[in-house]
């Protein structure tokens, strides 16, 4: 089998490096990190050298995007305890 010429290997390596750089730039640009975004869970204090997460109350309704509030409507029934 005939070996590839030296100039072809150089052009190939330069091309591969450039394509990799472009792909990496596109990927990073599409996954921008916001360094000022709040920590989850929120950190409210550092006590005795240990980070303390903020307490979450036991009570309170936690909704999701698939569950809409209907404050203007009178409920027809309740999911009371059975």
């Amino acid at each position, binding site marked *: 089998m005939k070996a590839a010429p030296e100039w072809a290997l150089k052009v190939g390596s330069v091309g591969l490096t450039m394509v990799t750089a472009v792909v990496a730039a596109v990927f990073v640009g599409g996954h921008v990190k916001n360094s000022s975004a709040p920590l989850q869970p929120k950190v409210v204090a550092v006590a005795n050298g240990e980070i303390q997460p903020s307490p979450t109350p036991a009570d309170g*309704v936690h909704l999701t995007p698939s569950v809409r509030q209907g404050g203007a409507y009178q409920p027809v029934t309740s999911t009371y305890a*059975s």
Partner: protein
Amino acid sequence: MPREIAELRFEALGTTCSLFAVGAGGGTLERARDWVLERHRRFTRFEDASELSRLNRGAGGWGEVSDELADLLRDSLHAYEVSGGLVHVGVIGCVIGAGYGRPFVEGPTTPRPTIPPPPLPEMLSLRPGQAYLAPGTGVDLGGIAKGWMADRLCAAMGGNLLANLGGDLFAAGTGPDGEGWPIDLAGTTVLLQDQGAATSSVRKRAWGAGLHHLIDPRTGRPAASDLAQVSVVAANAAEAEVSAKTALLLGSGQAREFLAARGLAWWMEAA
């Protein structure tokens, strides 16, 4: 313009059931009620003649089961799996041992010591048309049947129907205003559209200090959770019921992670 809601309340499954329909033909709610009552008779553990009691009496061998009971038992095994073993229909001996040996309205029975049940897959097996229970075991479907029935009832009846079976409910269709069925979730009104909700609680069906119907299969005793009630909204009533029960048994520390990981809406109340 809001459409008129037809409503029917009745007692079944040891609790109060409510059915609501919009634009349904005459007799729809009565047929839906009869559907629930028929399954109550078949799946109650308090009637010797029920299909479930017959299955429990035949523990130690294979027994014939209807398609619907097989479906319920299959869902029971699934609930056990997704709850990490916390939703366990095989705790019937522990429920009776805790004092819930007859219908709740008749009062508690004498408590007696019990041991935790074996893992559900070790005591319950299924094959087409038949179920097997290990010797000395039994199942109580009270913990999952209401959600299962609410889902199946709405699917069977079709249309714009809300089935609330003792707090485990499924809201089918767009409700009276086309925006969803308005449901009270711990003081907040939410609009549910083809979604289910359920509450698990140790405040109801309780008969003494630390004595209630919700058994922790890890101990075989009534759960000693730091939560008293958990309500969940999910894609259907069965999932909501299993998730609420699991969260309550996990306790507040792990319950939030469990519910958040599943993207469910919830409310919980400390004990």
